[in-house]
């Protein structure tokens, strides 16, 4: 049986405000446990929340970038449930009157462009972090738990998509695009590995062509965009097997295991919480003034999609190159700095999407912290074009230079890797090679054209890869063309 997957994503994004959502505590990641706390975020008796205006502004900006309608009247609710890492045993969140509603996001995959609806984007506060001490780190078999409240009260935006996503690839494209937008807005670090971006997925299957939705499963604990793709692929496969053998999918929450690539049951619908939502009486409604909204709208930066289109049009980049260059405001800045330093756009894009991207990945770094300055890379590109160094050597040196945080051109000079294009030096190498491979040379001269490539390779090897390819080719042909000596 063929099924169609129906996927909706709930994304939580920690905002990068300097202070928490409802108090003045700092939000620095990785601080000593419980050092960024106060009576408010610890839920001390009598303490009260005061909203962070900057965080609400960030949410409005996100809403505008996702083409949402910003509600003229929005309120906070309390979401009540007991959990030790939640100081008040309720979370201040939004319920039926969120600030941003009815938006959309366009994504691209092999099948073209798809519009994914955004149901809502709302404001809430993060919880603390529990560390369960015991064998697996899960609460069930722990001996005791430690709680760090540094994260408690950090502003969190929840962005809920419509069930408009059909494949794991689209889900990854959605998250990649959303991440690019949030980075461009400068409202979050959006690091899934540090938890500043978290994603839960709802997925159900239905017969291809059916209108009604199937029973949905919520999948949690994916810590990278790739994990979301893996978890969804696994879950689609699992549900397909369940349906194919005539069973019903159980509505439940499942936990993704990074190691095994599988999901396992966390809790079923019967165990679902009753959160007893009610309007938060300690806060007043949010009613953003029209001028405030207009000011934010006017201040929106160029968003990734528009940026990619501009890059493609202005610099004749391929869509893949434009996607890489346009992914992040810092990568655009790097690209523009390369151009300003004289690099041709295509070369700049190829280098960025190629060696630079590889070096950043290898070192787990963001482009904003790249160890090779755009001016240094532009100089290297120019050296290749000017025949000072050949492309393969340049690539290899670039990676070494990155490793050592050195200037690539300096490294080339230091190692004497400049390209050999002097006819005399090349001819010496050619004669040596022909002397050592007389039989092959004879076969070429007898008309066996394909031996030329072998001799060419041997000559390059003799020149330690530094020979200028066109010079080597010309000199080799000349020498082979000489009357048999």
């Amino acid at each position, binding site marked *: 049986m063929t099924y169609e997957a129906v996927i909706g994503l709930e994304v939580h994004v920690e905002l990068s405000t300097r202070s928490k959502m409802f108090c003045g505590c700092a939000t620095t990641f990785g601080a000593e446990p419980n050092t960024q706390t106060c009576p408010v975020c610890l839920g001390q008796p*009598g*303490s*009260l929340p*005061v909203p962070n205006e900057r965080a609400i502004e960030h949410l409005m900006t996100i809403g505008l970038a996702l083409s949402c309608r910003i509600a003229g009247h929005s309120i906070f609710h309390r979401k*009540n449930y007991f959990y030790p890492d939640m100081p*008040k045993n309720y979370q201040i969140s939004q319920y039926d009157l969120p600030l941003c509603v009815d938006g959309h996001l366009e994504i691209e995959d092999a099948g073209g462009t798809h519009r994914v609806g955004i149901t809502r984007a709302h404001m809430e506060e993060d919880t603390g972090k529990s560390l369960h001490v015991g064998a697996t780190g899960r609460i069930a078999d722990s001996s005791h738990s430690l709680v760090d409240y540094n994260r408690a009260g950090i502003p969190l935006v929840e962005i809920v998509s419509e069930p408009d996503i059909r494949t794991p690839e689209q889900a990854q494209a959605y998250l990649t695009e959303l991440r690019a937008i949030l980075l461009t807005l400068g409202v979050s670090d959006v690091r899934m590995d540090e938890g500043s971006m978290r994603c839960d997925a709802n997925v159900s299957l239905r017969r291809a062509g059916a209108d009604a939705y199937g029973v949905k499963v919520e999948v949690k604990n994916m810590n990278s965009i790739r994990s979301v793709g893996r978890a969804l692929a696994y879950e689609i496969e699992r549900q397909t097997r369940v349906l194919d053998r005539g069973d019903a999918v159980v509505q439940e929450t499942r936990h993704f295991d990074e190691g095994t690539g599988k999901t396992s049951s966390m809790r079923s619908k019967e165990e679902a919480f009753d959160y*007893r*939502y009610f309007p938060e*009486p300690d*806060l007043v409604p949010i009613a953003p003034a029209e001028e405030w909204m207009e000011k934010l709208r006017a201040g929106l930066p160029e968003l990734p999609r528009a940026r990619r289109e501009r890059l493609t049009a202005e610099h004749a980049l391929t869509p893949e190159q434009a996607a890489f260059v346009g992914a992040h405001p810092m990568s655009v800045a790097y690209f523009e700095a390369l151009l300003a330093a004289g690099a041709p756009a295509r070369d700049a894009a190829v280098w960025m999407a190629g060696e630079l991207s590889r070096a950043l990945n290898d070192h787990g770094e963001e482009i904003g912290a790249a160890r090779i300055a755009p001016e240094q890379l532009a100089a290297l590109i120019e050296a290749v074009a000017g025949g000072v160094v050949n492309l393969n050597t340049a690539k290899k040196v670039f990676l070494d230079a990155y490793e050592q945080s050195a200037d690539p051109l300096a490294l080339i000079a230091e190692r004497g890797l400049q390209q050999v294009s002097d006819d005399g030096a090349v001819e010496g190498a050619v004669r040596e090679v022909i002397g050592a491979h007389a039989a092959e040379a004879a076969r070429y001269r007898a008309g066996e054209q394909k031996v030329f490539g072998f001799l060419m390779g041997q000559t390059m090897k003799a020149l330690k890869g530094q020979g200028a390819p066109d010079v080597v080719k010309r000199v080799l042909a000349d020498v082979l063309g000489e009357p048999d000596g």
Partner: protein
Amino acid sequence: MSELWRLGAAELARMIAAKEASAREVTEAHLDRIAVLDDRVHAFITVTPELARATAGEVDARVARGERLHPLAGAPVAIKDILCTDGIRTTAASRILADYVPPYDCTVVERLRVAGLPIVGKANLDEFAMGSSTENSAFGPSLNPWDLTRVAGGSSGGSVAAVAAGMAPLGIGTDTGGSIRQPASLCGVVGVKPTYGRVSRYGIIAFASSLDQVGPIARSTEDAALLLGVFAGHDPMDATSIDDPVPDYRAALGEGIEGLRVGVIADWMGGDGLQPGVKARVREAIDALAAAGARVGEVSLPVFEYALSAYYLIAPAECSSNLARYDGVRQGHRAANATDVVDLNTRTRTEGFGDEVKRRIMLGTYALSVGYYDAYYGKAQQVRTLVIREFERAYADFDVLVGPTSPTTAFAVGEKTGDPLAMYLSDVYTIPTNLAGAAGISVPCGLSDDGLPVGLQVLGPPLSEPLLFRVAAAYERARGPAPDPPLWSAP
């Protein structure tokens, strides 16, 4: 023993500023009075002599330096033990917070310190301010200085009893459904429920956040007005606090009430359950207002019949959420020998909370549950809107409304503890004001046939405190000095 405790707060402060008495002497006189009386009255959970002496010492130093002082500087104050005090245990009269020491001061306490009012102690209350007699205190009830076999009222019974017994000229309470006005009425002192948002709630242990409001208690309207002036006003730490200038509450006290339109709430004066002696005294008080020039009329407010029921859904709903944080994990009591976190939560709360608190948590949890929300919490909020409209309608015709504060005088200890509904009815006249977020004052208006105090309640729209003080002060002038409780002559 010094007789300074017999004087009002403004008079004491005047004497201190004029160097006729030192703040230290004034504080000692009240601490002595507490030492002599509080075994019998039980107004305090924690007496704070060191804190009081430190503040009094600062006031004396400022007097010596010739500084200009607040008109209440040096006047001792008893604060309800639900106001957080940095480094001093704050119990909310609950076992669950019996050893809780806050790491910070509430805004009200901060403002008391700036004005130089020595805090003599943390006063008793019903657990988490839930009750009308202080019998729900985990530390035992406060007794009525007029008759030590009777309750002081509640929930701010300790603060009120302290003021009535002369253990402090000033008290601070909180009023969520009548918790300042009702005990003030029962103990024969002045109690004010300010407009919601007029006083910061920051650092006040929450019972029902949309209703809680801090207010002053004193033996005269002038002292109460001055005290409200100390701590009223906007606080950036409380998002619901009103950003509006605080008027000089004493300024209008001398103005008469000639021509003022006073509406008598007919439904209350004619209703069942109103003790005849209370009705008679309130009626006389209304006549006195008329004699002072007020234009008295009658108004019927039938929607108020539903206010009590609405209150007992909204307040428990909010309390069920506010009290969720007492789970044994972070602060307060933690049950011993729990097997896991759920067991820890359950045991801690079972041991830590008293019956009435548990009753309201269950009531509120139920009212907010999926499937019941609309029928209970949602409906109650609609009633709340109707109560607000009913008040607005009445204030189209009248400047203030008047009636009894409490349907009865002080009842005997134990009389209503077995019947929660009878206890709840004690607040039937005070609750509508809280639902509307408006202001009210209770001022003593004589003794009932049983020799116990009766309170006249004056109500006004939001931010009408100056008007309420003016009416109460005019009534006090017409009434003459209020009688003192027997404890004043036979300590």
